[in-house]
């Protein structure tokens, strides 16, 4: 190493240490007392997946009350990793995002079970929580989460491709097959499937099982939990998988679903190579960006599973915020939830997210997505995503791995149903 580099190293060391000390000082918490203009004051920490929507609500709450927020926004997977460590370490933020039901270790009911989150039962907004969400957020009679906005699993289609093939959105299974035949004849892939990402296998599965299981066998999960039935005995679950396999085998989907990840499957609809992609509405803003013409060229319909359009159910689950049981400022945390639950605020949050308001009293949002879903909400033909009602993430893991094996030809549907039963028995409460 030359003299030049040696002296540079010495200078670098000096500058780094001084800068580190200076910046560490800058980032230290302020000693200044928090402002207080109303009933609540102090500081709150919040961790969720994005500042979209909630950022403006935090700002307005800060202005109204003088409460100072420390925010953490991170991708869901990373956030869950971080929250798991923080919850175990007792340093969880005052308010944080949590998944519905029991699906993951950081899901609402798991957290309620270990006493990591606060019972919010007494809050005014609980009167406006849809009944369908009860199984996802009520634990031993207590409400443990605030539903921010809902996501539905729907079929999104490229309008230009439909017009080119001369078809309209199907409302029944037979119509779906008919439309798919015409799309095939027009040289398009009818349904884009990206099964290389195993989580994508859940979308079409839950879209079909919402109708075939929750709609047709409404007591199935109650009986399953009581040990009176099994996945293997469920006609709805068997038909769900048979329909998926038949769509693939009959050439109505991406030719190699196991070799296609989720993003390219969406891109295929965006660029017009494929017509339909089944996915959660939360991904629709991304699909709109990928599509020439944006939202104006995207259509939405509920994925049919039977030949009666009135029997179609759609999977619809909320995203949650929970309050840490260790929060040192519970009054401010509850006041913040009350703030975001106001009808206009709840609607603004959902609209910014490209989602559906979760509370029943929220101001209606007038956009394509909300219009498509509203009829199902009004007629109570929605059901939570199947995995959110299962007692542990292991069942969804068995589904994802098993369905990939079925598509690969390494397993049959009986084997997949047996895997689901084994996984369910392992986590049953």
């Amino acid at each position, binding site marked *: 190493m030359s003299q030049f580099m040696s002296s540079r190293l010495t200078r670098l060391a000096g500058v780094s240490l001084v800068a580190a000390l200076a910046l560490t000082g800058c980032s230290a918490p302020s000693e200044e007392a928090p402002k207080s203009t109303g009933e609540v004051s102090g500081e709150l920490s919040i961790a969720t997946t994005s500042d979209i929507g909630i950022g403006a609500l935090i700002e307005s709450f800060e202005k109204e009350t003088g409460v100072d927020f420390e925010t953490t926004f991170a991708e869901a997977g990373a956030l869950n990793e971080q929250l798991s460590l923080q919850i175990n370490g007792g340093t969880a933020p005052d308010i944080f995002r949590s998944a519905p039901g029991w699906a993951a270790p950081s899901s609402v009911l798991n957290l309620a079970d270990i006493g990591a989150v606060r019972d919010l039962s007494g809050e005014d907004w609980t009167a406006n929580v849809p009944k369908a969400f009860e199984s996802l957020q009520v634990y031993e009679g207590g409400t443990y989460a605030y539903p921010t906005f809902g996501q539905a699993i729907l079929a999104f289609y490229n309008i230009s491709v439909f017009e080119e093939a001369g078809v309209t959105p199907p409302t029944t299974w037979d119509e779906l097959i008919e439309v798919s035949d015409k799309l095939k004849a027009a040289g398009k892939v009818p349904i884009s499937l990206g099964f290389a990402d195993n989580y994508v296998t859940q979308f079409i599965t839950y879209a079909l099982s919402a109708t075939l299981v929750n709609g047709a066998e409404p007591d199935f999960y109650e009986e399953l939990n009581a040990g009176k039935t099994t996945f293997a005995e469920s006609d709805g679950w068997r038909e769900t998988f048979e329909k998926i396999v038949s769509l693939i085998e009959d050439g109505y989907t991406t030719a190699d679903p196991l070799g296609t990840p989720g993003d390219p499957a969406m891109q295929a609809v965006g660029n017009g190579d494929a017509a339909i992609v089944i996915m959660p509405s939360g991904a629709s803003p991304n699909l709109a960006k990928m*599509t020439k013409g944006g939202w104006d060229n995207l259509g939405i319909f509920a994925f049919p599973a039977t030949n009666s359009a009135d029997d179609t159910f759609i999977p619809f689950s909320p995203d949650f915020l929970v309050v840490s049981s260790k929060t040192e400022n519970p009054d401010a945390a509850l006041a913040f939830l009350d703030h975001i639950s106001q009808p206009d605020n709840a609607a603004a949050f959902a609209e910014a997210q490209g989602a559906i308001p979760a509370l029943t009293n929220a101001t209606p949002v007038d956009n394509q997505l909300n219009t498509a879903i509203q009829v199902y909400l009004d007629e109570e033909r929605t059901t939570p995503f199947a995995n959110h009602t299962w007692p542990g993430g292991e069942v969804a893991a068995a589904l994802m791995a098993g369905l990939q094996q079925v598509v690969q030809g390494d397993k049959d549907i009986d084997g997949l149903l047996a895997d689901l039963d084994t996984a369910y028995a392992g986590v049953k409460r």
Partner: protein
Amino acid sequence: MSTMTLTVPKSEAAPRRRRMRQGYGRPLLEVVMVLVTVAYLFPLYIMLTMSFKAPVEIAESSVALPKGLFLDNYATAWSQANLGRALLNSALITSVSITLVVIIGAMAGYAIARGSRRTSTPKLMLFMLGLMIPGQLGMVPLYNLMRDVGLLQSYWSLIIFYAGSMMPMTVFLYTGFLRAQSSTYEEAARIDGAGWWRSFWHVVFPLLRPVTGTVIIVNAINIWNDFLTPLLYVSGSVNRTLPVAVFSFQGEFASEWGLIFAGMVIAAMPVLIVYFFLQRHIIHGFAGGLKG
């Protein structure tokens, strides 16, 4: 008989090798080299071209050249993920960690290399344990430790972590290098009246330049690119590093690839610029750093 079997293949093999070099073998080798180069450059091409494409264009083809320069990706990535601050954070954490690693590692390596064989070998073994035990085993206890001492979300959590985790390899490199060096210069300095401290800093440390170069390069790249530790310790705070900031464009169900690749180009720039200016020293450091 044995002479025949040994000499015949040898005499035939040499001209064959020559023919390979001078005849059809050379173009073949060059084709292979070109293919290998293309394989190495392809990800770089994808990163650069995708960073200049709008989402619609990416959906059309991820491999084709961009139709124009869609600079919104850079502007959005820079503002949305606060990459300026993340860049400063990464630079600061890397440089302070490296400074500590070099100073402490060189002193430890010197003490071990020049100590008595009876005591220095167990000491070196102790450091070597750090190389053998998987870092993942310490992830949760370390996180709890950082939490208990109140360092989470701060620069120091990462600086202390890196200084500690990089130390075993650093001490190993310094010790190996010093053991191969003669102690004549230090002895001369001590005869002239220099103490241990003075002879280390004024005589030994300058002699360690090649291995110090290697230590800086290897550790700096590891720290700069590390994702998991900053994700756990400083994610979500203003102190997050570049890889964590870029990761924020990864969505739950879909990713914004244009923003991700623009962020990656911005993240790679400082390293490339440093390499451009210091490439002579870096190559020298790699070539001579381990030989002693």
